[in-house]
């Protein structure tokens, strides 16, 4: 009896610990940091360590809260930030479409392949995304450079007379993002397409629908969840991308992740960098919620 009681008490404590420990860890190292970013985005930059003025000061029984809206107004005022946000969104949208156009047929082909081949093909898709991201972006530098392999081959074939300028342009950034994020598009699409009820497609074929018609009217609408999940997995991180525009892009491929990095490390303007991060998060709230919504729905369906 007493052993049982002890076990019961232990179970209660164990449950609390299992929930409490990761909860506290994530509150401390994930949620709280965002609150601090929000706070610093309202403070004034100063030449000090750390380089900003305190938001809350307490003296003579008077709590002073100094909220500086200047950082946000600066984002509106200075064309640099405005251009960077628009540039990021444009690059992310175009790259996401590129991933979708290439990734959808790939996922479709894998889902229709023999079951044994499917696991091998999936491994082939996943492997590159697990090898170093930085190295894979670096590999493209040697390919796209003016004296790089692609230009050399084209010159040798006589297709062009002088090297094409690809490295340090937006084209290179598109190639880099599509290349780096393609697996994130293919995997959710595959997971969706492989679960599709084939009898619907057979019924359509029996009723005389042509395969293109069947695709547009049945397959594509049914895979909407996969398209949205994949697109969000590509779109969200590419908006904040830093490594790809820094290595492959030129001075005109202004992206917000790069600007944030420069404000923080080169200009040491922490408040403006924080404001940039908050606005970026604001822009991403809708895609992030959309992603979570479709993820949660998928999980519920499985359960």
């Amino acid at each position, binding site marked *: 009896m007493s*052993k049982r009681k002890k*076990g019961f008490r*232990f179970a209660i404590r*164990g*449950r609390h610990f299992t*929930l409490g420990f*990761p*909860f506290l*860890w*994530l*509150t401390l*190292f994930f*949620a*709280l*940091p965002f609150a*601090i*970013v929000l706070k610093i985005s309202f403070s004034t930059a100063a030449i000090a360590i*750390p380089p900003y003025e305190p938001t809350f000061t307490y003296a003579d029984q008077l709590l002073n809260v100094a909220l500086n809206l200047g950082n946000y107004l600066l984002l509106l005022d200075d064309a640099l930030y405005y251009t960077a946000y628009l540039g990021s969104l444009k690059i992310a949208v175009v790259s996401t479409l590129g991933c979708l156009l290439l*990734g959808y*047929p*790939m996922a479709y*082909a894998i889902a*229709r392949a023999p079951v044994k081949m499917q696991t091998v093909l999936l*491994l*082939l898709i*996943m492997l*590159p995304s*697990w*090898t*170093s*991201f*930085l*190295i*894979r972006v*670096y*590999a493209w*530098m*040697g*390919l796209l*450079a003016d004296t790089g*392999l692609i230009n*050399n081959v084209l010159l040798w074939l006589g297709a062009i007379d002088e090297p094409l300028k690809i490295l340090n342009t937006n084209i290179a950034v598109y190639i880099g993002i599509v*290349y780096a994020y*393609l*697996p994130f598009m*293919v995997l959710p699409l595959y997971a969706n397409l492989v679960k599709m009820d084939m009898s619907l497609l057979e019924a359509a074929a029996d009723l005389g629908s042509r395969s293109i018609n069947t695709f547009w009217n049945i397959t594509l609408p049914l895979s909407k969840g996969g398209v949205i999940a994949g697109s969000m997995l590509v779109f*969200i*991180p590419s*908006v*904040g*991308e*830093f490594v790809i525009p820094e*290595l492959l892009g030129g001075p005109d491929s202004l992206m917000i*992740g790069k600007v*944030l990095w420069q404000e*923080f490390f080169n200009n040491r303007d922490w408040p403006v960098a*924080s404001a940039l*991060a908050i606005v970026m998060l604001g822009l991403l709230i809708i895609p992030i919620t959309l*992603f979570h919504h479709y*993820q949660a729905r998928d999980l519920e369906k499985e359960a």
Partner: protein
Amino acid sequence: MKKLSFSTVMLWLGLIFLYAPMFILIFYSFNASKLVTVWGGFSAKWYVELFKDQQILDAVWTSLEIAFLSASMAVVLGTMAAFVMTRFRRSWAKLSLSNMITAPLVMPEVITGLSLLLLFVHMADLIGWPAERGRLTIWLAHSTFCAAYVAVVVSSRLRELDMSIEEAAMDLGATPLKTFFLITVPMIAPALTAGWLLSFSLSLDDLVIASFASGPGATTLPMVVFSSVRLGVSPKINALATLIILAVSLIAFLSWYFARRAEKRAKAAMEQ
């Protein structure tokens, strides 16, 4: 001959697109010429140069140490979170934990990095800890974002698991802790291994978050690679990149293998 469909052609083109740059990089790492793009004969001299570079060797060691410790912590955190997500009743705490643990999966790295750095600066200001940023702060940062991946891998395994075995053990008088270590852990061990290896390779690869969380005391390998790559393409980096690709592919393949074996075993057990 079977007619090739449009999607199959795209699949092969996509796979060539994914693999060609890496194979070309590996090929050029054996180039004797100093110019990266001109072929000057076969040579392994850049590998020899690489092993003479003390800065790179130090960075490799730092990265391995951080990756090992981060992966271990991430498995502990991620498994606990996965357990809460699959076994606990619906409550606000469970809901906010599952939201918080999956958030780092989609968060842009610059935001995660910036926010963690600001946290460490604040903590140092308020309680004097951490006194300086370095291995410890990178470890904290990496454990947090890798835990998200572990939670996904482990929770999908826990969801498939037959709960009646655990219930039987508890009915026979085993404490929950004993049940967990003697019954649950062996059953999810391949998922834990896969999660550990995945975290290890993620931590080894991370540049952005490590750059924010680190101080003058600790430089990881991606940070060294990035600062030299910024200056242009160099044959020594080609050699280093080749070794990284081979090492990480091996880890990735192992983690896939363990996850796969677990699936097969589970299927075999269900069929019995």
